[in-house]
Each structure stands twice: as C-alpha cells, then as structure tokens.
C-alpha cells in the first residue's frame, strides 16, 4: 500500500494548471498517447482483460468490478452496443465528477473512448446532471476539440475504430443516477428504474446491450492505460486473502470532503485512507475546534459513522464494518457536535421523500411516512414508539430485503437505521423533552394538519 503522505494526485493533476482542460495541455501531460498506442496494438478483449486485472471497481457507488461488468455483454452481438457515462452526480455531498469534468474533460473522454473500444460500442452517451452548466461547457468544448483532432468520429486516428459521443443533459432528478433509470431517461421516458433481469448488459438503452459507468471510473481507465495495471494495483488496499469474495480496493480515489471542516474540498488519496486522517490532514480538522458528532462516509445514503468509528478505512469494505451501507461515492460529510441528530435525519428523510421516484410502494410510502414522522417529532408530538416504527421502516424497505426495484430505498433506509441505532439516546432525550406529557403514549396518532417539508 502506498503511503498516503507521499501520494501525488493523478486524477486531479490538471487542477491548478492554467488552461489544464485544453487538448493541447492534456497531450503535453502525456494524454491520448496511450489511446493511440492501444488502438493500434490491442484488441478490445485485451483492454477488457487489462481493466479486469487492474481490479478497478466502479466509482459510482456500488463498487462493482468494472472489467467484470464489461464481460457481461453478449459475445458476438451484431450491435449496436451503447456505452453510457453516468455524470448525473446527485448523491448529497458528492462533487468529484464535477471537478473532473470541469478541470480535465479530456481525461474523461480518453477513458470513455478506451472503454467504448473495449466494449465494441460505437456510440457513447454522457448523461450529464442538469445543474452542471460549467461541466456542460467544458465537456462540449473538449468533445469538439477531440472531433477536430480526430480522437472522435469515424476511423479514429486511422485505427478503424469509430465512436461518437453525445452529451445528454438530464432534467434534474436523483433517480436518473440509477443505471436503468438513467437509461429510461436517456430514451426520453420517465426515469423509473427497470426490473432486472434483463440487466442492461443484455438489454439496456433502446433494447440494446448497454454499459453504464461513472465519470471517475472513466478517469481511472485513462490512467490505467497510461500508467499500467501494476501502478494501479500498487495503490489502495489489497484483497483480503481470507475472504474470497473481496476483490480489494485498488487505485486512487477522489474524496469529497464537506460539512463542518476547516478546508472542505475534493481530495485525491489512495483508497483506504481513514476518515480521521482525511478530516485532519486534508480538511484541517473539524471546524472551530469542535468535535465531530457524525460523519457520512460516502454520500448520505451510506448512513453515518460516529466519532468513535472515524478510524475506519474508507475503502470499499471499510464502512460496511461499522454498519454503513458502503463506501458509496466517498463523499465525506462532517456533522459537528452542535447539530441535532433529529434535524440531521429529518433533512435526510426530506431529501429521499422528495427524490423517491414513486414506483415501488415500500419506497414511495416509506420515505414519505418517515418524513412525516420526523416532522411530527420535531413539532413536539413525538413518542418513543415512533423510533421502533422508524427502525422498522428502515429495515424493511429497499433492494436488500427485496421490497423495491432499485437501491434508492436502501439509501433512504440506511441513515434512518444508522441514526436510530447509533444515536437512540439522543432521539429519546429529544422526544421526552419536547413532548413531556405524551412521549409514552401508544394510541394511534392524529396527524399534523400540514406537513411543512417537501
């Protein structure tokens, strides 16, 4: 494992360089040369093998092996195969894709071209979040430059491989980041995630085999092509030899640090840095000299860690060991000791109630019910019994218990589950103080006339 102290940023190398996002500058850093070499010398299967052997895991949140995902595409399919890049970055706290798209768009394009070559796709879509106009401008400018320089279009640099990249702007919904929701939206439909099977690799966009990968994954592919598999595997946490199902966490990762820290920002570090090191060394510690109360390990849907759990390594397996859903997008949000955890959870529930696509009953009603319950608790009408109910909602909605189609409900459930489990004392204290006469009641509760949130 590399020393995090001496690690030099790779994915973010263009940040801070003047005109770092231009084609000329990118090439001066060695960009596109690996692509040309690879197109001239290698077969798509070799590239798949390269990415597979690098151990690259998808950076979008689920951490699925990228190379393995590509092998799910049907062999000898007459085509077309579509390649989608997921730039609908909307997990709260996450902004690493934006940095990459704004500051180094050619790195993403190179990764996309390599990935499209590996998957034999001749059309790629970059599904861009609506709220990123700056990214739109820089990506579109980069695409235009790449076409002009012959890195896109017909017969790329004389290799015989052709690729068109289309920049598709979404209409602003969290659910469009779910891979089948993204495909539906790309097709011009309401972004209701599809039932699986068939998986997108078999039948995705426009009923054709489709791969959906994250922007940061594309940047990693470009770097693997440039620096090699060995370099990539020298960074991060190796696979646990005692756990055959652990593929390890290799490579550099962009951590988005925000919330109550002195220096919020997007920092590149080897996978496996602990939350405490990230906060203290990169973030300059919790702001105003306070203590952290809770830390989100990777976007709010991953749940929360307490102050005691901050030494957890932020690799793909780490947060799971302290009851979180996973590493997610590695968006670390720090919540200091002055924040009420009730308000925190209320905010989380408000987000998911607003963003639930409304397809599956348990998620549609569960997210809205949990929000209403927290509204009531905050209005001084909470009962201790509500906490059990919240925990039950949290443990029964989602893909993991099998009650929903996609993982949005799991993301909504984890903060509820984690907060109730890890901060139950604070919830109980809050309810007793705000509802001193009624906190022990168990009869059905009359609702508040108006739900103010949402």
């Amino acid at each position, binding site marked *: 494992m590399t020393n995090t102290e001496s690690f030099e940023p790779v994915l973010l190398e263009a940040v801070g360089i003047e005109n770092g996002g231009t084609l000329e500058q990118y090439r001066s850093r060695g960009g596109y040369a690996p692509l040309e070499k690879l197109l001239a010398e290698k077969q798509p299967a070799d590239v798949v093998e390269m990415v597979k052997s690098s151990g690259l895991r998808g950076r979008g949140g689920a951490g699925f092996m990228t190379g393995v995902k590509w092998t799910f595409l049907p062999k000898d399919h007459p085509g077309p195969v579509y390649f989608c890049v997921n730039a609908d970055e909307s997990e709260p706290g996450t902004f690493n894709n934006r940095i990459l798209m704004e500051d180094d768009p050619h790195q993403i394009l190179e990764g996309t071209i390599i990935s499209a070559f590996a998957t034999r796709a001749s059309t790629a879509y970059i599904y861009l979040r609506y709220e990123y106009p700056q990214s739109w401008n820089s990506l579109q400018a980069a695409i235009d430059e790449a076409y002009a320089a012959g890195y896109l279009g017909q017969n790329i640099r004389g290799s015989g491989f052709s690729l068109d990249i289309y920049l598709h702007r979404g209409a602003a*919904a969290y659910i469009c980041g779910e891979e089948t929701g993204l495909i539906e939206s790309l097709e011009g439909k*309401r972004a*209701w995630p599809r*039932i699986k099977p068939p998986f997108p690799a078999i039948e995705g966009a426009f009923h054709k085999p489709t791969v959906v990968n994250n922007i940061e994954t594309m940047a990693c592919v470009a770097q693997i092509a440039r620096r090699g598999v060995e370099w990539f595997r020298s960074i991060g946490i190796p696979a646990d030899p005692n756990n055959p199902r652990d593929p390890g966490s290799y490579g550099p990762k962009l951590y988005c640090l925000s919330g109550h820290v002195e220096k919020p920002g997007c920092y590149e570090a080897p996978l496996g840095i602990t939350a405490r090191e990230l906060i203290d060394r990169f973030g300059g510690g919790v702001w105003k000299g306070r203590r952290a109360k809770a830390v989100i390990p990777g976007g709010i849907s991953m749940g929360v860690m307490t102050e005691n759990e901050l030494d957890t390594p932020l690799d793909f397996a780490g947060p799971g060991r302290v009851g979180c859903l996973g590493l997610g997008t590695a968006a670390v949000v720090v919540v200091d000791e002055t924040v009420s955890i009730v308000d925190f959870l209320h905010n989380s529930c408000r987000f998911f*109630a*607003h*963003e*639930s*696509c*409304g*397809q*599956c*009953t*348990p998620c*549609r*009603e*569960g*997210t*809205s*019910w949990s929000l*209403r*319950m927290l509204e*009531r608790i905050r209005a001084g009408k909470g009962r201790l019994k509500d906490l059990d*109910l919240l925990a039950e909602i949290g443990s*029964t909605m989602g893909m*993991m*218990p*099998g*009650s*929903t*189609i996609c993982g949005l409900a799991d993301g909504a459930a984890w903060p509820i589950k984690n907060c109730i489990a890890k901060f139950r004392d604070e919830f109980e204290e809050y309810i007793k103080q705000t509802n001193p006469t009624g906190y022990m009641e168990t009869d*059905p*509760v*009359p*609702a*508040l*006339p108006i739900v103010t949130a*949402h």
Partner: protein
Amino acid sequence: MPTVIVDGQEIEIGADERLNCIEAARRAGVEIPHYCWHPGLSVVASCRMCLIQAGSRNPETGEVAMIPKLVPGCQTPVKDGTVIVTNSEAVKESRARVEEALLIDHPIDCPICDKAGECLLQDYHFEHGQSERRADIQPFHSRRRDVGPTVTLFVDRCIMCTRCVRFTREVSGTAELMVSARGAKEEIDTFPGFPLDNKLAGNVVDLCPVGALGDKDFLYQQRVWFLKKSENVCGGCSAGCSLVTEHNQDTVYRLKPRENPHVNKWWICDEGRYGWHHLHDESRLVTPGRRAADGFDDVEWADLITRLRDDLKAAGRLAVAVSPQLTVEEAWMLCALARSIDPEAFLALGYVPTTGDDESFPGGFTIRGEKAPNRRGVEAVLGMFGTAETDGKVPGWTDLLAQVQAGKVQAAWITAGHPTPETSWCDEETAAQFDSLDCLVVQDLFDSPLAARATWRLPAAGFAERSGTWVNCGQHAQCFEQAIRPPAGVWPEGRLYWNMLGRQGLYDPHGVRQQIAEGSATLAALAGNLPATGVDLRLQQLAAT
C-alpha cells in the same frame, strides 16, 4: 412435465408454458395478491404486493435452495423444480406492510366510494392487512378530476399501480394517461388538452384495482353488492366480445368484459360497454299490435299465435328476413316456422348494418365494422334450409327487396332488433317498397318507417333479455344466458316461435341447439354444453372434412 411446488403442494404445468409465480400458484388454488400485475399488460413489479419466497429444488438431490430475499411473484418465472412459498411469516409481514403503506395516502372513503365491495384494497386489507393503525393519517377527501368524457379520476384513492397508464400505451395505443410528479406526491393525470378519449377508454375503469377511476355512466348508480352477474355476449358488432351483464331488478347497470382468450382477451370497446341503454329506452315497442283503421290494436299473445299464422297463410308466398341479431336457435325456429306456414317460403338474411372498416388497436383488439353479432350463425342456419346458392352465399336483404319489388311474394316477416333508437335502420324509401304486400310482419325493438306500415307489429327482445348462441366473425360460437326479463308484455322471439311451432312447455334453447347440431355439419360443434369461452366452429368443420 415440469413440476412446481406451491406451499408444499406439487402441481404440474405444461412443458412449453411460460407462467409466472402468480399464475402457477393459481393453478394450485393459491391466490397471490397483486395490484400492478395484469396478464394483458407489461410487468412492472412495482406494487410489491405479490412478494413471495421462491427457490428451486435440485432434481437429483431433492434439496431445496431458497433465494435469500423476497421476490415479486409477477416477475419470477417458474420452471421445473421451482419452489414457491406464499404462507410464511416473512411473506405475511411483507403483505401487511404493503397494505399499511398503501393506506397512508388513501382517503379510506369507502362509504362513498363506488368501488367498495369489489375493491382489491379492501379485500386484501381484510385478508392480509393488520388491524392496528400505526400511520398518522389526517382524514381527507379524495380530489376528483375529469380525465375524459367517460372516465373520472379520484386522485387520492389511487395506489399507483399504473395499469391504466400501461393500458393506454400498450393496448389502445393512445397514451393519454401519464404519471406526474414524484414520490408520494405522484398522480395519474392527462396531458393538458388531451383527455382520455379513445374507443377503449372504459377498460381503464375495469383495470383499476381500487376506486380511483370511475365510470361516469355507472357512478353512484348502484352498490356493487346488489348487482347480479350474467354471462352475455356483446351484440354491438360481429366481434362478439364476452361480457358480464351486471343487473338488479331487471335493470342493467353496466357491462364488463369477461375474459375470453379466443375473442376479446380482457377488453371491450366503449361502444359495446355502453351499448345497453337501448334496453331501457322509453320508446321501445312493448305490445304486439295488428293494423286497424287508426293505428294498431293491441292483441293478446295467445290470440296472436293463431291469427298471425292465418294471416300469413292467407296472404300467399312468404318472404322472411332473418335478422343477424337473432340467435342461432331463434333463427332456426323462425325458418322452420316460415316453412311450416309456406313450404316454399323465401328465406333471406336480414339487414346487416355496417359502418365502414374494422378498427384495430396495438394491443390486438379489433372493433368490427359489421354491426351485428350473428351473421355467420344465421347464414349457417339458412344453409340448413337449403337457401344457399351455388357459391355458398345466402340471399340477403337486397335479394329480399328484389323479391318484393318483383311481386314474387305477397307476405313478409321482417325481423330486425337493431339497438339504435335514434336512427332507424330502415328509411322511408326502402319501407315504401313493402306497400304492395298483403301482409307485413315487423318484429323490432323500436318503431320505424317499416314498422309503421306493418300489418303486424311485434316487439322484440334485447340482447340481455334472451338466451341463445351467436357466431362471431371468426366462426367462434358462444352461448349466453338471459340476464333480465324483457319489459312487461314482450315475448322474446324464441318464446313466440316456440309457441307458434306448437311446441310444448317453456322455450328450451338448449334443446333446440342440440337439434340444430344434429342437423348441420357446419354447426355440429354446438352439441352438448359449450364452455363459457365458446367453441370454434372451424375446428369441427376441419375435423369433418
């Protein structure tokens, strides 16, 4: 044969059948509750009511491996060795939770809801829900919104199964309905300026598992538990869709499609759905009459039987128009009756209304341009009486008119029964051609220029007031039963012919049908009791050749 194990009970399914868990469990007599799944629509697996436990049994070791989480029954296909568990605690809890969740945003206004009594939300809650109310529900009324000329939407009663949305996209192909907003705020809605207005629109009301979509024609007319159901066939066109006539105290309240994979699958068109109002039209003919100096004298049916026969015998050569609205049994008896009065009687197919071309929809449903239910059946019956010409065609309405104009006949018995009170099927000009006859018998639902000229004006019965057999445009024969009694004073055609033929006892359509089946190769398939979905006459004909 593939074997599926449902709650420990082994059932066999067909080798090439593609069933999901809901369908397979149904074979074993186990009902898996579901809202969003419908056999005629695409699978979305979104209501999550049909969550069950599934697994597979190893054919060699017999060991059962279960999927660790719950799976939707609608989305899970069964194959040999599939194990389905629908009665475990986990499944029961999951159902109770879905029921609870659905009621959070439901007004629970059952006392004023038309669906009460046939509502899946009610039924499933009774069966699978929990008695304790844990959700904090503020009582509220469901907002009502018009979505089209025939359908109204009670917005908050909706459970978002999206069956209606999928129907308009996949079956009618018109896509008027959509889901707007997101999460718990989402609603079914139409696009501004594009109401739900298509010829199959009424089906969305049948599809709705709860009281969200209401049929304006039926709204607040009757509580569903008072309705009796009779299996009927639609007479609106030659498609012959299977229906359920829902009625109470001799009044029809609504028609609903009856599942029939050979004919209409699960749907009917709005024309058929609302095609029962003529039964209760004020202007119907309800008493038989004989021409007098000023209009018609009422005649008792018992007298009519003999006087009509005498009148026709006295007039001379008889021509009979056998309406395509008559059942096979009635047509046969009418022909037999005509030949008993005049052995040389000219028998012809009656007037067949048509309105242009057939209209097909993406979901495979077709509305036929031929607006009569039984042309094929009447043709077959006429064939039995030797009227078919060399090319297999039977004489039709124009042939009959030609006979009348040429003076070859002196008497005519015209049956019609077309359900169109507003515009008569026979205009003044056509009717005037019958002025030369000595005796004209018109048997119809409504008065018409032709009926005004009649010597005998006889009331007819509507489709729900009779029983018998119709043969649709695809040579598919279906029997139907009488739903309601005809208006006081009206003898249905079958009863009149039966009595005029001098037969004893009550009119027995079943017995007549057996007689027809024995006497005709074409209609031989009508022997015995027909299944509810009918029989295909062509199969029998194929077997005979």
